[in-house]
């Protein structure tokens, strides 16, 4: 049976993980490769690396890091952050990324999704949607939630799927950082509206939140960052818990 996926997310800046971690036994908590390997051993199903570097050297640094990750880890990983062109994607995939994720650039230029799907196949194109409830409607926001758009989240989810997105990474800016649980309503609506897998993100605070997003919203995967980095939830414990709730997970 296809299992629900647990995906730790690592924020990368200048080749290092940021926000820090609480893995005190790691030699260097800022080393993304070391942290990634740790998550692999613990049973993470996939990893996401979001690059927030804003320098001109970015492309080269990131390509080297991706290669380093691909050399060391034996599970799939997605790379996102500032991807704007076919060439950007080509470099990341050539260096061993399994999937790439685009967000703001897809909103600015939706044709990019078609272009990427045509060149590389839908299976490696993740489109990330940041969403926020504005006047009681869930709308798409960009630039890390700072810019609102007029796009309705469900409409946008359908459009990106038609354009060739193979997966949707849905982050609720309402819930992100609150530790009060994932956004069940919009995740459910998106999951119902599209045929591709949906990764829920934003708001995970305890193990029950993961069970809820899988059982109530039919998310295919759940992503979180700080609760894993700071060991508030250990992945093996989380998987045992989900399994006890009759949620299929890889243990």
């Amino acid at each position, binding site marked *: *049976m296809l299992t629900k996926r647990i995906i730790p997310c690592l924020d990368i800046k200048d080749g290092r993980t940021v926000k820090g971690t609480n893995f005190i036994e790691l030699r260097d908590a800022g080393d993304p490769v070391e942290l990634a390997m740790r998550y*692999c051993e613990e049973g993470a199903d996939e990893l996401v690396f979001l690059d927030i570097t804003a320098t001109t050297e970015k492309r080269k640094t990131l390509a080297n890091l991706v290669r380093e990750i691909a*050399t060391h880890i*034996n599970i799939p990983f997605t790379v996102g952050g500032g991807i704007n062109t076919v060439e950007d994607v080509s470099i990341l995939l050539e260096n*061993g990324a399994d999937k790439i994720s685009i967000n703001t650039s897809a909103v600015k230029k939706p044709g990019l999704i078609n272009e990427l799907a045509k060149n590389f196949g839908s*299976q490696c194109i993740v489109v990330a949607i940041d969403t926020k409830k504005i006047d009681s409607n869930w709308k798409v926001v960009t630039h890390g939630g700072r810019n609102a758009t007029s796009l309705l989240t469900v409409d946008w989810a359908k459009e990106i799927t038609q354009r060739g997105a193979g997966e949707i990474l849905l982050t609720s800016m309402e819930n992100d950082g609150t530790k009060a649980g994932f956004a069940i309503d919009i995740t459910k609506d998106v999951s119902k509206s599209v045929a591709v897998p949906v990764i829920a993100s934003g708001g995970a605070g305890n193990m029950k939140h993961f069970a809820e997003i899988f059982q109530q919203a039919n998310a295919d995967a759940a992503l979180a960052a700080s609760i894993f980095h700071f060991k508030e939830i250990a992945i093996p414990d989380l998987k045992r818990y989900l399994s006890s709730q009759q949620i299929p997970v890889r243990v």
Partner: protein
Amino acid sequence: MNTVIIKYNSGNIQSVQFALQRIGVNAVVTDDMEKIKSADKVIFPGVGEASSAMNFLKERKLNELIISLQQPVLGICLGMQLLCKHSEENDTDCLGIFETVMVKKFDPTEANLKIPQIGWNNIHHLQSPLFNLIPADSYCYFVHSYYAEKSQHTIATTEYGVTYSAAIQKNNFYGVQFHPEKSAVVGEQLLKNFLAI
């Protein structure tokens, strides 16, 4: 031992090479006919679209080379599908080593079936040295919208809406639908097993 990975217009070739490195094997990625022919083991990976991959292979006469290989060959994902007779993906005639096996699309009308299938699913009815030391029902990582139907060549099955071939074998040709290079320790064991055949 000399292991080659066939280079063509497909993704994830690098990942296979990295995975082999992790188990201590240096494989050559090449489209050189002689190097492929003289290799001890050949890996035919692939992520992508069937018709463009077949066209690429034909342009370089790699199609003729692949079907003539005598040493153990492992097709992965699209590589495995291309070893079959025909794929519903853009109505593509494939290499036909598995001369009766058809590649079909998952049924999009089936409720709750997300397409592509992305993630970890378990493999059943393991019947090949390829699965030595791999426990029944182990989890492997799959990413695909098309599948090889069950046949007399099936050596492992998986369920996703239908029961289909997770792995197939005929003579020296092996194929796996999942990605051993991304399937953690299970995948590493499978690659070791293939190299030990």
